[in-house]
């Protein structure tokens, strides 16, 4: 069968990122130490080009390419755009941090771009194989990124844990995939869906396959009880890496869960609904409760992520198009929120000092009122206080859950959100009410300030006018 170059059209964004990664890899060899910023610019240009290409090839009917290995639909367009934007933001925040520590190396950008490529591949995947390829590309890049600061013992330990557990998680995912392949005879999600619809949950091998898929997904998302890596990695990884790892990959993970469970195994909805419900409740509960006791803010964000993942699962397990759209909205806005919150930490850090304790936020309002306001917005959003987008996300998800008569789930979620609101408010208290512990001024670049402004105000703006983004999310699930 001759190759048709039309196949390349849907993956133009991926190709752009791949080329950028390759270019940065080579260009970096010829750069002097003081010119390493060129890598940064190249990476941003690559992300921008990919973003533009996503817009150009996006929209319209669902397209399959590469014999059904790759899909381009409205969901992939939106998720790709989201992942690219959030990644670009994190790269902008990361640069001063890296520069201060002499870590502004080409490898960081190559690995980050490879991770972005992995995310895009995951988002475009329409077979188990493509999905797994993207997932592993992402994961391997992240393992290396976590250990990026080679002098940091904590970082190396975190990377080791991440790698060992990640390998186990991937293994279980593959185990599940192999069972489903065995039961359906196909790795293409459309064919799997047809076969599953035919067999239903009568075929027990399928049920086991789903169970292991859910475990793998739960690990990648960091849902309880497969969450153990999250706080350690968030704490151990260099702040920019934790930021990168905690934001955009969630979008890709969302694509993974939708492709696998919703598109592939929708006929087994009742089976995975129960499992997701358990994971969601445990995540929301443990995430919120354990976050309170943390004094390290990166660790606290780790637990906070866990609880937000629970909310994403809530939307998904509702099983309605409304639920999927809500979960998608939640994921996208959460990624934005996480990038911003970690971004503030990179801004607070300086040469020889890493902001990672709650105390380090003390008196931020006196040191820089604008960043303080942005962080307060982000925290309110994470707590789910209106009119920020965090509230909208929670509202939509909860509504979806209530609509399908799973009232108790909504009540549990609300209960733990109330507890959860507590620790976000504590951060706000530190920012506004406490005296700064240091007199060192906050030095940032104009680019960082602009990015943070856009990021923070987007949280507010999307909360006030959610209809546009929500409309896009809903269009992805007709």
């Amino acid at each position, binding site marked *: *069968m*001759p*190759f048709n170059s039309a196949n390349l059209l849907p993956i133009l964004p991926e190709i752009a990122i791949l080329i950028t990664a390759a270019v940065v890899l080579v260009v970096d060899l010829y750069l002097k130490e003081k010119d390493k910023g060129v890598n940064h610019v190249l990476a941003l240009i690559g992300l921008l080009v990919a973003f533009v290409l996503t817009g150009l090839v996006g929209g319209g009917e669902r397209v399959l390419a590469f014999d059904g290995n790759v899909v381009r639909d409205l969901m992939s367009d939106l998720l790709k755009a989201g992942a690219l934007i959030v990644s670009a933001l994190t790269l902008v925040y990361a640069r001063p941090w890296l520069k201060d520590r002499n870590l502004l190396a080409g490898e960081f950008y190559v690995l980050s771009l490879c991770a972005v490529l992995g995310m895009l591949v995951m988002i475009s995947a329409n077979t188990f194989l493509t999905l797994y390829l993207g997932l592993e590309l992402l994961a391997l890049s992240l393992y290396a990124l976590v250990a990026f600061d080679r002098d940091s013992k904590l970082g190396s330990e975190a990377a*080791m844990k991440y790698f*060992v*557990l990640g390998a*186990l998680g991937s293994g279980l995912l593959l185990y599940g995939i192999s*069972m489903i392949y*065995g039961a359906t*005879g196909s790795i293409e999600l459309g064919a799997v869906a047809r076969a599953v619809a035919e067999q239903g*949950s009568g075929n*027990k*091998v399928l*049920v*086991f396959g*789903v*169970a*292991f898929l859910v*475990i793998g997904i739960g*690990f990648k998302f960091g849902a309880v*009880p*497969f969450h*153990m890596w999250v*706080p350690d990695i968030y704490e151990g990884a260099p702040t920019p890496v934790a930021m990168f790892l905690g934001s955009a990959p969630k979008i890709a993970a969302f694509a993974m869960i939708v492709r696998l469970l919703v598109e592939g195994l929708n006929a087994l909805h009742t*089976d995975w609904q129960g*499992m997701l419900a358990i994971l969601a409740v445990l995540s929301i509960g*443990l995430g919120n*409760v*354990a*976050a*309170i*006791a*943390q004094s390290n803010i990166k660790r606290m964000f780790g637990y906070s992520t866990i609880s937000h993942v629970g909310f994403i699962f809530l939307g998904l397990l509702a099983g309605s198009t*409304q639920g999927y759209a809500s979960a998608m909205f939640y994921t996208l806005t959460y990624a934005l929120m996480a990038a911003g919150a970690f971004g503030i930490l990179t801004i607070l850090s300086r040469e020889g000092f890493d902001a990672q304790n709650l105390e380090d936020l003390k008196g931020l309002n006196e040191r820089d009122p604008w960043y303080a306001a942005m962080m307060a917005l982000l925290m309110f959003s994470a707590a789910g*206080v*209106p009119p920020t987008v965090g*509230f909208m996300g*929670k*509202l*939509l998800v*909860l*509504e979806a859950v*209530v609509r399908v*008569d799973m*009232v108790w789930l*909504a*009540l549990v979620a*609300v209960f733990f*959100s*109330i*507890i959860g*609101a*507590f620790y976000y*408010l504590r951060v706000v208290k530190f920012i*506004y*009410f406490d005296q700064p512990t240091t007199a060192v001024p906050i030095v940032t670049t104009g680019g960082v300030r602009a990015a943070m402004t856009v990021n923070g105000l987007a949280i507010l703006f999307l909360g006030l*006018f959610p*209809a546009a983004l*929500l*409309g896009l999310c809903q269009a992805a699930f007709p």
Partner: protein
Amino acid sequence: MNLLLCVITPFLGAALVAAVARLGTWQAAAAAAGVTLAAGAWLAPLVGGTFQGTTLIERYTWMPREGLDLTFRLDGFGLLFALMILGIGLLVILYARWYFSPQDRLGRFYTGMMLFMGSMLGVVLSENLIQLLIFWELTSLSSFLLISYWQQRTEARQGARMALTVTGMGGLALLGGILLLGQITGSYDLSVVLAAGDQVRAHPLYLPTLLLILLGAFTKSAQFPFHFWLPNAMAAPTPVSAYLHSATMVKAGVFLLARLFPTLSGTPEWTWIVSLTGLTTLLIGAVFALFKHDLKGLLAYSTISHLGLITLLFGLGTPLAALAGVFHIINHATFKASLFMAAGIIDHETGTRDMRRINGMWGVMPYTATLAMVAAAAMAGVPLFNGFLSKEMFFTETLGTVAQLRFGWLLPLTAIVAGIFAVAYSLRFIHDVFFNGAPIDLPRTPHEPSRWMRLPVEVLVALCLLVGMLPALTVEPLLAIAARGVLQGPLPPHSIAIWHGFTPALWMSLIALTGGVLVYEGRRPLFALAARLEGRLEARRPYDWLVAGVFGVARWVTVRLDLASLQRMLFLFVLSALALGMAGFWSAPMPLTGAGPLLPFDPVSLLVALGLAACTASVVVLHRSRLIALILLGAVGLIVSLIFAKFSAPDLALTQLSVEVVTIVLLLLALYFLPQSTPAESSRPRQVRDLLLALAAGGGNAALAWAVLTRPAESIADWFLTHSLPGGGGANVVNVILVDFRGFDTLGEITVLALAGLGIYAMLDGLRLPAPAADAQGRAWDPDAHPLIMASLVRLLLPLALLVAVYILLRGHQLPGGGFIAGLVTAVALIMQYLANGVAWTRARLPANLHPLIAAGLLIATMTGLGSLALGYPFLTSSFVHFHWALVGDFELASAMAFDLGVYLVVVGATLLILIHLGLVHDLSRPPAEEPR
């Protein structure tokens, strides 16, 4: 449009005020007042229609697909609240201009005030409940800004935080309630919800809905047991207290009760929960108020008490009680706001709020004293003042329950007790502050405040009097439409007048008045008692306990579950996976053995399987002695290759065999740098635990594998078997798959192999590792590193091995063999030269630079692919031709064989590269040994 503008104006105005505040305080105040008036102006044209009883609804699309619109609603009840918010807001703006000292930044205050005003208007003018909730939370946020205005003071920060925590969490509970309400009625529109009362009350979710909504309302309105935040919020500047804590924010809770009154009320649950809460709050607030020495503390507890009264009225559930509740909302707002302002004046003039020190103010500020006395009389429920009217209605309503309930008489009794205390604390407010001897040690010398500071108080007190004396002329129409808005139906017959004759309610009022005077007379022993109990009945204690408790739980959870150890993480991970898998099994039990045919059973297979199991188990048991474990591992690999052979897969068996050899050599090279044994790290119980878990997980896997393998499956093997010869020209299906059907994969794999080789080369090149100079027992290594016999034999072996490799390569397409295996055989043969003869000897005879070899292999493989592309076929399409040679016979030449050659070269190159450089590390790490001759 008007309602939207009315709500938005203060928000936009906040920006305006913030900007104008740079010019000066007057400008800021004027801008704030202007904004308030503008918001009122949008409302003005609608007032007429509302008084005629129409309900105005404005709708703007917001999130159309979710069915969420921005919807505003104006009816009598909403109008009443809007008027209070704007009217009292205007007075507070004026008052605040004089209250704050010049160094306070007034711009921030007015900005916060505008934000709060907009949020509050949003709450009372919302038709959509979600939208109402958003504004509700906004009031919490903006009040947080206002309460913490003096953020340098610790108590202000604590008070603000507590208020935000309690009301914010209440808001989340309310969110849950509203979601349930929307689920029951199918809409978030108030019109729909209000009309669906019967449906809601009959619904099974009614109770949770009610509880969640009440939680929101009670936290906001500072009802017992959530009342503690209000006194702590008194750290706010007094204008804030006057506005938020008397007239508006705390009223949002009762607003919600009233708003949802037609939907939720009328059930025993409602009556019991709401009226009991109200009653408790009423009593507690009244009693505590008397014993507060802080002027604002007294007013705060009095506010709590009055909010309890209003709650109780709505809890009773009768239309008349609801009407009385609305009436008391109005009255309380007027007299309490004026009292707060008066308290602010006193604080402002004397510099303290301690009633034990502020005495005899009558002599200094008689005018203010008169105003305060009127307002206090209204609070006490003295006739001719507005508070009396609503209180009398309240007493009447409490009497209604006497006949209905078994202990109904308790209600009027409690009401009277609360009334007595209300009179007593009002009396204390008047007597302690304005009379009672001379002031003690005041920080400032008080005098009458400025004219403008008194004006807002005057206006409010005038209202108290007017309503109190001429209720029918003043408040009646507004009350009527507001009550109609609450009840969503016709008003009950009622009459608001000063004199109804000697009714029981009047007697209750009189008892309360006399009792109050008596209690105040006997206050000294009571105060002494209160001083002794001080702190023990502190209501924030439970809150503190709760916070501490949550922290405790969080710490406990963290200690238990926040594991730093990877082993424990893995344990938990595997355990969870096992549990989830088991759940899948138990939820749908199925026969373990499927219907597929089983293979025949023979003793040799059993023996092989047993051997495999024994070797594997031995590896686990003996894994601490590294060398032994490695040898056993090699045995496992060999048995596996036997099994491949048994299942007629000679290719796999060959590959496994050669890979096994190479890996073991590689591991041995690495082992040299490691200690001979691994120290034991796990304790015995932990080992047992891990063993059990491993057995369970492994058993689960085995069971699943058994279940899958015994089920009939459609094999893909047939397709390859039938297509191998005609499509790929090879009889060896495995090899055809590798070089033809899956040629692209193989190309990728050898690229990876080449890269891995280069990567390891880059890492090992020039590396020096500290290696042990002697073995574990301290014996030196054998000086004869390259024994002569072995060296000679190995040299002899080389041509043989290479011949075998070429043979395997060439026959690969038709018979077991192929480039991969041949490559490994060659590599093993060459590495043996290194091992047996030493690096220097071998290097002199073999090219040390292996990169060209790898590159050539990759190039050949890629060129084969590109060749087919150049001929117009897809990448890596293979073709084959048959030649007939004399002597040799029929010979096939396939393009895939060239590809296989590429594979061969890469495998040889990469494997050698890795092994040689691992070996070189040894040589670099120790002094050069004697070379063989």
